[in-house]
């Protein structure tokens, strides 16, 4: 009997081996050490304005691994990924337009 989109097989839930989880944990720890290693206050490593970008990039790689494996988005229904992406997307929308305003304002000086 076809009804809606709940026609997944009964025992179709994906089971990830513990070993995979352990590997991911190892990678996450390595990336955490990397974040610390490239941070200016810790190692003096200085990439100028890129510093924040690098930190953000590494964090995003870590987040992607947590999402894909720990939270199972890799094997999951696509709608869960869609929900996550739409949340991030609208957050970016909010950020972009607020920043668009703040960085295109014309500064007015007092002339007194």
């Amino acid at each position, binding site marked *: *009997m076809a009804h*809606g989109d709940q026609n997944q097989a009964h025992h179709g839930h994906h089971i990830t081996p513990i070993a995979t989880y352990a590997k991911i944990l190892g990678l996450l720890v390595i990336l955490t050490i990397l974040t610390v290693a490239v941070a200016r206050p810790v190692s003096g490593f200085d990439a100028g304005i890129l510093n924040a970008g690098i930190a953000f990039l590494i964090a995003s790689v870590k987040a992607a691994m947590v999402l894909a494996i720990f939270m199972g988005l890799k094997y999951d229904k696509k709608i869960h990924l869609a929900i996550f992406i739409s949340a991030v997307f*609208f957050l970016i*929308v*909010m950020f972009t*337009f*607020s920043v668009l*305003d703040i960085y295109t*304002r014309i500064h007015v000086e007092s002339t007194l």
Partner: protein
Amino acid sequence: MATAQVVSEKNYLNESKGLWSWLTTLDHKRIGLLYMVAVLTFFLLGGLFAMLLRVELFAPGKTIMDASQYNQVMTLHGTIMVFMVIIPGIPAFLGNFILPLHIGAKDVAFPRINLLSWYCLITGASIAFFSLFKNGVDTGWTFYTPYSIQTSNGTTFVVLGAFVMGFSSILTGLNFIVTIHTLRAPGMSFWRLPLFVWALYSTAVIQVLATPILAITLLLIAAERLLGIGIFDPKLGGDPVLFEHFFWFYSHPAVYIMILPAMGVVSELITAFSHKTIFGYKAIAMSSIGIAAVSFFVWGHHLFVAGQSEVAGIVFSFITMLVGVPTAIKTFNWIATLYKGSIQFQSPMLFALGFLFLFTIGGVTGIILATIGVDVHFHDTYFVVAHFHYVMVGGTLMAIMGGIYYWFPKIFGRMYNEFWARVTFVLIFVGFNVTFYPQFVLGSMGMPRRYYDYLPEYTSLNRISSVGAWTIGTGFLIALFVIIHGLLKGKKAEMNPWGAKTLEWTTSSPPPHENFINEPIVTAGPYEYR
């Protein structure tokens, strides 16, 4: 469109008795009625404040209250109407009742969360009203900083109350999305969903994705008041215009939380009373989704003169124009549905036609306000007040009234008095135009909004407006009596008094506890009037 249902003696109303059985119910229909009681109570209160405002504005200078009382009443009117009436109005009351019936489900996906969201509304409202004992609140419903940081202590309570009510809205939206995705009856594909369900779906998306930003913004206001965190306070290096961005990032989409479900109701009413399939089903369904998506990109038109950059203003003006397109599609498709129909004019249809009339005016004045060069003049004047009342009252409240009358026989199993229902329509419709049309003129003349006092040249138009407001008030009071009378004394309703085609009309009036005795099996679209 579905197999006929067996009529049962037991229904959701008489299934169990006593106040406690209502306060702990998990049945979406009963929760819908709990929302009805709450929303109508808040509406009476908010309406009463509106009447007081119009008495005060009957003449320039002090009429019945002083400036600080006026500002408090204005704030209460706005806050109650926005957070406690229009936002929960259609989705949580009519939507809660009708949505599972429309898709052939036994209940919403999470009945406990459904009840919890009602208690969130009540708790939030109570916290907000507690502010009355803390010197009240006079910020307007928009809580603009730094004014809201500096003014009376009551503000903290209203802000926290709105925070809690936000959760009510989030949980309702979450529940609806999951219900629509997982609990559709066999054969109920997405393209067979009634348009009201599409509208609720789009609304729910906004509720889930926009309300959290309101939550954090309100928390920050509370923190600003309690800790002085300085993010929105210019004295501490903060930016009040950033608050306006945060606030309107929620509150503009929230405008569509208010109007999209109303559009859904009107789609149902027009096709049912024209006895004709809806014109351009997919276009109407997709325009709901389109409006919901674009609504997140346009909030900056509330900041055209707020100190936002000129570049941002122009970008927002452009995107705002785009929202007009799906709205226009809907309006024209409704008109096209009337064409070659077989139209009856019972009161729900009158309200639907009234909606078309008033919403069109609200819509075109919206385009005028979106045009940035003209908005600089109209911004924060009565033109804006008139515009959003045409959309919110002329749109949403007309749809609520139409929806209540339309589903009245299904909800209560009784009919209301048709003559008096038509009287309410005439009073509300005429009174509405008398109230708010003059406000367009006042705005053109330059009268700013939220004014306790005004220049003598605005007097006569304000008088007309006040008289109109009292006419609307009378109309709604009569409507209340029509509802109560129908509830107690109305004659028994049939299963399908209007000859409509959607699923809720295939079960008994009122429906049994699990809605359908046999699960409906859907074999065709929702509006097959052949």
